[in-house]
């Protein structure tokens, strides 16, 4: 059951009752870890298609299981006490049990040890996440109310376009539109023109905003960062070769009226296909410029 990456199979076609039962079953039995899919299965984080998303997933599951273990132990003791020491069953309170320096020291030190065990691998991943050196393709991502602008650098120098909610979704999402969202492909997660990137390449995004704070997120990449006016935030990801496809996410920072309607769509292609796309884009913009259809942005500013 694909959630964000909705292109390969259609989650809505599955009978709802079965999906519910399955999710409920897995959730209650704590089998969440076994659902090793690239994309989210509807109740857990996606493993994703980058090394970062996999590391994050691993950390997430580790901490989750540690929490489950602590919960089983602590809740187990509580439930035992609730059953065993009932007044109605004639339990006599032991009013001398009010203090024990020894156990209090033990249950202070053990949590500290557990926390250290969690913090070390987390710190390693942080250092890796922040290492944006040696990127092969940089794209400047600018948030606007309510769309994204992608300006390519390096090999894609000169490519610059906006990415806006697709027309189908936009019609369907109007109040009283009368259109059933279930009939719209990738409802609210589709754009007119997605960002295109090559697989197997370290891509660095430089995020900023022209108006309010936005946030760019693709769960399958393990990549989320705010786009803040006046700041440039960096993030990087490298999609595994062989994982080409369409990946979807959304703006996650409340940015006004249409915050829920500015999706992020990334089209991952092989490096060769990406090169072809770059050439096509450059040819198209050259042609447009020759016909005078698209004056360069600087000319617009000067003519004011």
């Amino acid at each position, binding site marked *: 059951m*694909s*959630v964000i990456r*909705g292109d390969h199979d259609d989650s809505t076609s599955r009978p*709802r009752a079965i999906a519910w039962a399955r999710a409920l079953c897995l*959730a209650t039995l704590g089998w969440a870890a076994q659902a090793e899919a690239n994309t*989210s*299965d*509807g*109740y857990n984080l*996606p493993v994703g298609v980058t090394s*970062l998303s996999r590391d*994050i997933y691993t950390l997430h599951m580790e*901490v*989750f299981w540690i*929490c489950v273990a602590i919960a089983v132990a*602590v809740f187990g003791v*509580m439930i035992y*006490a*609730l059953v065993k*020491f*009932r*007044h109605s069953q004639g*339990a006599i*309170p*032991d009013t001398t049990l*009010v*203090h024990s320096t020894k156990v*209090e020291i033990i249950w*202070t030190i053990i949590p500290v040890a557990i*926390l250290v065990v*969690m913090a070390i691998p*987390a710190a390693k991943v*942080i*250092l890796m*996440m*922040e290492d944006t050196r040696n990127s092969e393709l940089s794209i400047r991502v600018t948030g606007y109310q309510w769309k994204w602008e992608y300006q390519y650098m390096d090999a894609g120098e000169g490519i610059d376009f906006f990415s806006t909610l697709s027309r189908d979704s936009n019609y*369907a*999402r109007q*109040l*009283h539109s009368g*259109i059933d*969202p279930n009939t719209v492909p*990738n*409802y609210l*997660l589709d754009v007119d023109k997605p960002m295109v990137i090559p697989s197997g390449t370290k891509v660095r995004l430089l995020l900023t905003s022209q108006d309010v*704070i936005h*946030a760019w*997120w693709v769960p399958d990449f393990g990549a*989320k*960062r*705010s786009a*803040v*006016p*006046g*700041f440039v*935030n960096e993030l990087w990801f490298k999609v595994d070769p062989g994982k080409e496809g369409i990946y979807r996410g959304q703006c*996650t920072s409340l940015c006004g009226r249409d*915050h*829920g*309607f500015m999706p992020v769509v990334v089209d991952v292609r092989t490096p060769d296909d990406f090169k072809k796309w770059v050439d096509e884009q450059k040819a198209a913009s050259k042609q447009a410029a020759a016909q005078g259809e698209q004056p360069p942005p600087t000319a617009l500013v000067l003519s004011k």
Partner: protein
Amino acid sequence: MAQSHASDAAHHDDHHDQPATGIKRWLFATNHKDIGTMYLVFSLIMFFIGGAMAMLIRAELFQPGLQLMQPEFFNQLTTNHALVMIFGAVMPAFVGLANWMVPLQVGAPDMALPRMNNFSFWILPFAFTLLLGTFFVPGGAAAGGWTLYPPLSLQTGDSFPMLIFAIHMMGISSIMGAINVIVTIMNMRAPGMTLLKMPLFAWSWLITAYLLIAVMPVLAGSVTMLLTDHFFKTSFFNAAGGGDPIMFEHIFWFFGHPEVYIMILPAFGIISEILPTFSRKPLFGATSMIYAIASIAFLSFIVWGHHMFADGMPVAAQLFYMMSTMLIAVPTGVKVFNWTATMWRGSLSFEPPMLFAIAFLFLFSIGGFSGLMLAIVPADFQYNQTYFVVAHFHYVLVPGAIFGIMAGVYYWLPKWTGHMYSMALAKTHFWLSAIFINVLFFPQHFLGLAGMPRRIPDYAVQFTDWNMVSSIGGFAFGLSQVLFAIVIVQCIRGGKKASAKVWEGTNPTGLEWTLPSPAPYHSFSTAPEIH
């Protein structure tokens, strides 16, 4: 000081032994019990108003597509739901409980500063009239989230100055309430009641009051800067003018994180009163409980950055805030272990306050676990601004703070009214609340992990199932709260007479149980002696 009050009391008793009649009793109230009652009633009204907003939110989210409202109005609802619940429901409820119970627990005749007490309450109805009035001005109410992040919050229409002024008034009210608690506890404890002998609820409020005094002015400063950015062309947070929108987040969360603990520490105090009573056994490790509250309060000042990991932060800061946040689990763990040890080898009975306290133990711990997960920076990048965060903070605030308040109300209500309430109705209220709170919020963990951002009025169709479950839980939880109001009203009107100890068969500790029920209008006019 307690001594001198005790001797003065004899002179006062003859002319206002009885409460004034009619509206004057409430308008000019200086009696801590009257003011406490007003705070609690006000808080209950706000709880239902904020709850109505939540029901509208859940109704719109019941299925994908927009059915009921425009996105602007949805954003106004989420923003004001938070402001009303935090500043209108939870905080005034705790101040109301403090007004009623702190003087009774420390053996003082009243709060130290009764006229200021009157003022700090009566600001609130005006503040909230102003806040709720913003729904009716051009441009509607504030819709930028309760966190008020600029530049978005600066796009607010005519309601903006009303919002800021309302927040200033709430802040002033909170600060005055906090001063009153500190002065009462520091100066008016009965002779012989050393600080370490003081009941845990009074202790938790003492620490909370210091947090309030420390951070409410910070909130006032940050919203004042928003105001001048909006109207006087300053550029504190405007990047184009050389300002810094991230600076607002730092200032806001320097207030905001201690604020989170302001909403939970008094609940810790209440739970620490109730568990020993119904376990018929003293609180385990009472001193370490006090130290744990104090450590949590200290740590609350150095963890604010964990709200901002995804907004761009140096690696060193990410590491620091991750570690400091994780450290909070240690004193919180100590508290949970001590509460468990309090029940261990006790003799437990399950009256409504105890039921809420037990639900608090389990469900607050679940909120604690998701909090620990959120502290792990790399994972936080995935969780941040999703429904996982919504699930987390509702688990600590609803079955945490609000169940704590309800436990406290069910514990002390007979002491206030002199009547026992309907145990059957209160238990029904408990079971409905405890079940539906989980139906409401547990699926939101799944929604967040599966990729649903928070604060959106409409969502992709794969999120439909869990949203429907959550909405059904929301409506059921909301309706169950009507029972709470019914129990309270019935209890005020009459019922079986409550004894001084109220909870017969247990042995509740604390000075409040030495007074008859209802507690007389003037209590401890002569200070009790503590041995």
